[in-house]
């Protein structure tokens, strides 16, 4: 419902930007997707922290699933961002924008998580190594997020908020909030489904080992 509402508001209700025209509406999908990717990576780091601190074994699969979701939303951020860049700046990608490069580094860092995870045998050692790696990545999150605020604005748009509040009209801000809620709900639902699938898979593997 939220997704349909978000789509309707973004494409039909929100006012058109005077400078960018219809392509500005990409903002309503690109920014929520990017923020959802940050939330997924932060959730993965939190679960990794719980695994290392509380010895909560279930947190390994939860952290892994969150990285999985974060990488999917990361790909979508890069693709929707590239499409927006092409129409706004005339290029698909530019290396001169620190925000873009930092997000790419964050994305590649978490993509490498899978290589690390599958290069070691399943067990407590793999869980701990993966957790340490996921936790290290959390350092990149504020760097990537704050880069949009701290870097000089050359091409990438200014941040949504500053000390004076949201930098857009009330209807645009409302649409953005609905789209963000929809994207977070979608990520939450996919996370639950993926996690359940991975848990059932693990149980089946154990059962198979017992039976054969």
């Amino acid at each position: 419902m939220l997704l349909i509402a978000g789509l309707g508001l973004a494409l039909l209700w929100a006012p058109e930007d005077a400078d960018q025209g219809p392509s500005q509406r990409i903002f309503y999908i690109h920014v929520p997707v990017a923020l959802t990717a940050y939330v997924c990576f932060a959730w993965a780091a939190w679960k990794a922290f719980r695994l290392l601190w509380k010895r909560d074994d279930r947190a390994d699969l939860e952290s892994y699933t969150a990285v999985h979701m974060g990488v999917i939303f990361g790909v979508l951020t890069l693709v929707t961002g590239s499409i927006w860049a092409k129409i706004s700046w005339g290029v698909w990608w530019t290396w001169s924008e620190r925000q873009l490069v930092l997000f790419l580094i964050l994305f590649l860092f978490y993509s490498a998580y899978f290589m690390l995870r599958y290069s070691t045998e399943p067990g407590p050692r793999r869980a701990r190594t993966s957790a340490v790696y996921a936790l290290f990545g959390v350092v990149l999150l504020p760097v990537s997020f704050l880069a949009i605020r701290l870097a000089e604005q050359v091409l990438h748009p200014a941040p949504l908020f500053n000390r004076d509040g949201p930098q857009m009209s009330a209807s645009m801000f409302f649409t953005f909030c609905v789209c963000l809620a929809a994207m977070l709900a979608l990520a939450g639902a996919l996370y639950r489904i993926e996690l359940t699938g991975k848990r059932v898979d693990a149980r089946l593997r154990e059962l198979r080992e017992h039976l054969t």
Partner: protein
Amino acid sequence: MSTGEKYLAAAYLVVFAAVLIYVVLIALKLTRIERELSELARLAEERRGG
């Protein structure tokens, strides 16, 4: 359709397609799990019988 509208449609379609592909992959995974479960149930039945 203007160029801006084409790019706008492309951005939304990419996200929609990704969600759709993900749902299809989950459906395939569920089918595999169901098949494996049936196989394990058969194995358990054989062991109990034999």
